[in-house]
């Protein structure tokens, strides 16, 4: 697993934790809700059973009442008994159909109801016939005899009682089964609530631990970042200070180094002027050497300052007509006038975007080098060209002079690095270092190709304007 993946999983972990916790809570809520529903159902079922049993009791009561009334009428012939019989008779079918509705969901009970209905019909028929015997016979005996023997109808009452008891037992058993199931469910739900809640607590706890660790880590990282920034700021301040010191240093060089140098050159000159007749030719030569070297040192100081300046000066970029700049530079070059034998070709050059003064310095150095190092060629030839591509403009200065050995390429752009002796070609070895510095400050690059005695080409590339 690569570090990016690891950090991805590390970041996702608390989110997973919180998600898991919410899923747990949802499961707990759902199962509680379902269980409450079950209990509600159970209460409904209990009421239902109760009602079934009540209705059965009622049926037994009504049929018994009708039976008692029938017997009473058979004995006494009193119409009062008849009224209570009639009322029971009216209510019974209603009760039966209510019962049938109540147990419609249970096939066994429904079958029992239809048997019950059969029994009720038999008993009712017996009662009806008994009453009509009494009413038409005017005596109690035949009616009572019929009522007592009644073609086996009497056993229907017993069978009905047995049936009702059976039905009530069945309801009770169903009820007990439901109760048992609900008790078991309650136990399960309780366990689920206890363990589920514990699980959710655990998940949330761990998530908070992870988040806490994350926050601590982040705080530590923030602190480290602040410290790093402070260190960087300190470093920048130090660099700025160093830069300022360097500026002061170069100012001092420009001022303080020149005074004694001027004195050396000046007093050697005074000596040669004022004591001309007292000096022999060797004495004059020696003074000449002092003068020459002072001059060289003066140039070295100037170049060193120019190099330091090329790094410090702020860039002010504009669009530059490089062709015109090269022509102007050529016109200003002393070598250009003196060596008319040198053939210079300037091709069409693309525009550049950069600091006018600094880029002019680049051309100045590259072109004067080209003149200098091709001056000893038979037919000196300098060619300036340029191309533009997607990212940059590339300029090239080619000469057919002494060239250089690619072996020493790494010394080419170094400060005070020279690949030729001063006697051969004068110079301080700062020119190309300045070129490189200016181009790099523009975000560009410099490079060169050369072959000994076959010439050299110096390239510099500047980024296109964005």
């Amino acid at each position, binding site marked *: 697993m690569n570090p990016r993946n690891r950090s991805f999983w590390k970041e996702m972990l608390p989110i997973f934790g919180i998600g898991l916790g919410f899923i747990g809570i949802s499961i707990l809520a759902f199962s509680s809700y379902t269980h409450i529903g079950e209990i509600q159902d159970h209460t409904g079922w209990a009421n239902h059973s109760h009602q079934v049993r009540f209705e059965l009791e009622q049926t037994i009561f009504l049929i018994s009442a009708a039976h008692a009334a029938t017997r009473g009428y058979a004995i006494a012939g009193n119409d009062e008994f008849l009224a209570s019989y009639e009322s029971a008779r009216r209510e019974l079918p209603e009760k039966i159909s209510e019962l049938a509705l109540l147990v419609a969901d249970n096939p066994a009970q429904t079958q029992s109801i239809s048997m019950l209905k059969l029994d009720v019909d038999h008993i009712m028929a017996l009662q009806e016939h008994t009453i009509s015997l009494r009413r038409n016979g005017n005596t109690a005996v035949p009616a009572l005899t019929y009522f007592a023997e009644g073609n086996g109808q009497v056993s229907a009452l017993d069978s009905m009682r047995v049936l009702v008891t059976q039905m009530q037992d069945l309801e009770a058993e169903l009820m007990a089964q439901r109760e048992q199931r609900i008790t078991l469910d309650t136990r399960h739900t309780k366990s689920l609530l206890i363990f589920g809640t514990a699980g959710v607590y655990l998940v949330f706890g761990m998530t908070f631990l992870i988040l806490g660790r994350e926050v601590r880590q982040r705080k530590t990282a923030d602190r480290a970042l602040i410290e790093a920034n402070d260190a960087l700021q300190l470093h920048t301040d130090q660099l700025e200070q160093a830069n300022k010191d360097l500026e002061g240093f170069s*100012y001092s060089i420009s*001022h*303080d180094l020149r*005074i004694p140098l*001027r004195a050396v*050159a000046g007093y050697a*000159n*005074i000596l040669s002027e004022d004591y001309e007749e007292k000096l022999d030719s060797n004495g004059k030569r020696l003074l000449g050497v002092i003068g020459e070297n*002072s001059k060289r040192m*003066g140039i070295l100081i100037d170049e060193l300052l120019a190099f330091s300046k090329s790094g410090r000066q702020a860039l002010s970029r504009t669009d530059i007509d490089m062709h015109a700049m090269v022509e102007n530079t050529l016109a200003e070059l002393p070598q250009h006038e003196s060596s008319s034998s040198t053939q210079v070709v300037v091709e069409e050059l693309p525009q550049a975007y950069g600091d006018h003064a600094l880029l002019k310095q680049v051309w100045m150095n590259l072109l004067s080098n080209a003149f200098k190092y091709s001056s000893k060629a038979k037919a000196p030839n300098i060619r300036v060209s340029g191309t533009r591509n997607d990212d940059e403009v590339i300029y090239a200065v080619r000469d057919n002079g002494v060239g250089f050995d690619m072996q020493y390429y790494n010394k080419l752009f170094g400060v005070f690095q020279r690949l030729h002796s001063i006697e051969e070609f004068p110079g301080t070895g700062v020119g190309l270092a300045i070129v490189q510095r200016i181009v790099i400050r523009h975000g560009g690059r410099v490079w060169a190709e050369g072959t000994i005695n076959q010439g050299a080409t110096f390239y510099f590339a500047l980024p296109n304007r964005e």
Partner: protein
Amino acid sequence: MVEFKHVDILLAEDSPSDAEMTIRALRKRGLANNLIWVKDGREALDFLQQTGEFSNRSSEIPKLILLDIKMPRVDGTEVLRYIMSDEKLCAVPVVMLTSSAEDRDIIESYKLGANSYIVKPVDPEDFDRAVSEVGLYWMLVNKSSI
């Protein structure tokens, strides 16, 4: 007490060798007869304000002031600032003679009102030429308001 003769040129220069070469170059053109050399800005101010060593000097104003920029105690730009703030002195041509070719010095000097800014060349011949040309121009060619 020193007797003070008539002064045409005030030269403030802390380097004795530079001063000697400057005076020599001016002398070649016959311009150094009435020249006074002071070694720093403080002495230059004393001369101009007739204080200190120069308290007995007449209030005569020089025709040309040559100031080195980098001097101990009081530097050239400060002397220049005083000259330009003085009603009588501000008309005197002031030439900054210095070793420094730093842009900030040049800009500062011209801003303060220097008439010329000469970077003293290392080459003795160039030095002679630069100093004598400045002396000739401001002493003889230029028509002063004084």
